[in-house]
């Protein structure tokens, strides 16, 4: 299963202490696609990304990165192939924005060497692209949450990887920056055949932008596939216990979900 250049997880389980978070999940990610992972809080989305990037080792099953077992691949090797934009942006040390973005080149710069021209060009062009050039000399600790998030996003782009994992990377951003970064992501997928695997909370954004949706519940893949096929009222109800209306939207050119006002009172945790 899985082509040579794919990222796949095979029958993976993971538990924190006695609590099973990921339960026999098998997924195959193919190059050049935008995958979105959706599911209620605590369903194991972030853990799944941590396993994909090798930060956590599964209790059973394995992750295969481009035909190699991830557990047997060196950290630097992985960092040249997979980048992660994680949820945690608490940075306690006053590095400048430029320094933070340059850290994305870490796996490419040999110890004790200064960054070469290619590294510097990469950092400059990514900062330009993500619109953070104007505060490149500012301290990251002085930026707003959304600006900080964009810097961390730029750092991941600088890693120049074929796999880009986003863990709610747009949660602190206004809609204009969200759309502009999604545009960049889409462009990277088209031009560089990168693959994006993103955890989303906004179902409508996920549906509009991604090629495949993966719905997760209680550590298991509930359903996965194209938005047209898998995004249904039944799925939403099953995952989030809310009534919703799902229909194709001409303007967005994708399926969108709507929640009624009276549904708030029917919430039963």
């Amino acid at each position, binding site marked *: 299963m899985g082509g040579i250049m794919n990222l796949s997880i095979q029958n993976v389980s993971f538990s924190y202490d006695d609590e099973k978070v990921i339960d026999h999940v098998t997924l195959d990610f193919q190059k050049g696609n935008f995958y979105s992972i959706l599911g209620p809080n605590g369903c194991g989305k972030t853990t799944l990304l941590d396993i994909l990037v090798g930060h956590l080792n599964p209790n059973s099953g394995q992750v295969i990165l481009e035909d190699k077992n991830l557990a047997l691949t060196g*950290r630097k090797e992985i*960092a040249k192939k997979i980048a*992660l934009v994680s949820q945690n942006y608490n940075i306690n040390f006053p*590095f400048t924005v430029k320094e933070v973005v340059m850290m994305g080149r*870490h796996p490419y710069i040999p110890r004790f060497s200064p960054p070469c021209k290619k590294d510097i060009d990469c950092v400059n062009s990514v900062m330009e692209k993500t619109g953070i050039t104007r505060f490149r000399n500012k301290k990251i600790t002085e930026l707003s949450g959304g600006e900080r998030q964009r810097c961390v996003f730029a750092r991941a782009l600088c890693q120049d990887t074929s796999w880009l994992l986003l863990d709610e990377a747009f949660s602190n951003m206004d809609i204009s920056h969200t759309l502009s970064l999604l545009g960049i992501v889409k462009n990277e997928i088209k031009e560089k055949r990168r693959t994006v695997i993103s955890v989303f909370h906004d179902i409508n954004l996920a549906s509009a932008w991604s090629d495949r949706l993966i719905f997760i519940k209680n550590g298991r893949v509930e359903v996965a596939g194209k938005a047209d096929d898998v995004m249904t009222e039944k799925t939403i109800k099953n995952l989030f216990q809310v009534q919703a209306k799902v229909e194709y939207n001409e303007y967005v050119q994708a399926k969108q979900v709507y929640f009624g006002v009276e549904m708030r009172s029917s919430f039963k945790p």
Partner: protein
Amino acid sequence: MSLPVAAISRKRTGSLVLLFSFVLFGIILVSASMGYVKIGFSDILRIVASEISGNATLANGISETFRVIVMEVRLPRILACAAVGGSLAVSGVLFQGILLNPLADPYTLGVSAGAAFGACIAILLSLGAAIVSVPLFAFAGACLTLLFVIYLSYTGKNSSASLSSNTLILSGIIVGAILSAGISFLKYTADEQVAVIIFWLMGSFASKTWFDVVLTLLFLGGGFVTAMFFARDLNLVSLGERSATSLGVDTRKVTLILLVTGSLLAAISVSVSGIIGFVGLLVPHMVRFVTGPDNRKLVPVSMLVGASLLLCADTITRAVLPHEIPIGVLTAIIGGPIFCWIFKKGHTA
């Protein structure tokens, strides 16, 4: 366009290191000349030069007393003090990076309490040649404490949290609290010895020997090389474990190595001179204003500044004040208010 900027920043680090090396050298010279007997700079330089070259004619005309004062009394104390200052500062940089917290210091993980406990036991058992056994027990106490803290932080099944900054800080605080209670108990049972214990705990560089100097410098050399080797990795680690791992750093390995390095530096410092606070906390904090948080610049500059500042403090207590007061007390008296000021300024800025 940015390439020259990077080059300039490298050059700038180089000149900072050079500048602070000169400052340190100057302070050593001034300190060696000060004291009950004033000795001129040129005399000191000539004495040292003649000792190093073995050419006695260089020191012609300088009294033998001066030679003994400089070579056997002042220089060992001065160099031991500078080496301890450097060690504490580097250790502070490492701990602040590992614990993702600019307010951590070499003693956060209870290393000092461990050393103090070891020293108390040695003093209580009055193990004859205190010159050897007290530092040895202190060092052992510090190392055992570190091992236990690391053991506590490896929280069994849940591998993801092991050695994370929160687990480490919590383990350190718990172990430190237990050891402090132990120290109090030992003091309580110590009777007349209690004065010795208290005096030792407050720190002093009096009657340090060349053996202390060489030993501390060896540790400092090893610690400095290790710190510089992993300095860039530490930059990434200081931004959080997940980011560091995804950027290609073997976070757990780097954390463990630097943790041991920082603790050994703290342990050797405490065993040579007792507990000296604020150097490890304050120096990296102040230097960061000048160099920024990049550990490749922070480590060498902090080492030099730490050595200079502690030496200034020791010279004040040795040669300026009418009575020598414990160096640990002096650093706290000077360092505390400075820290309050920095802290307040940092918050309003």
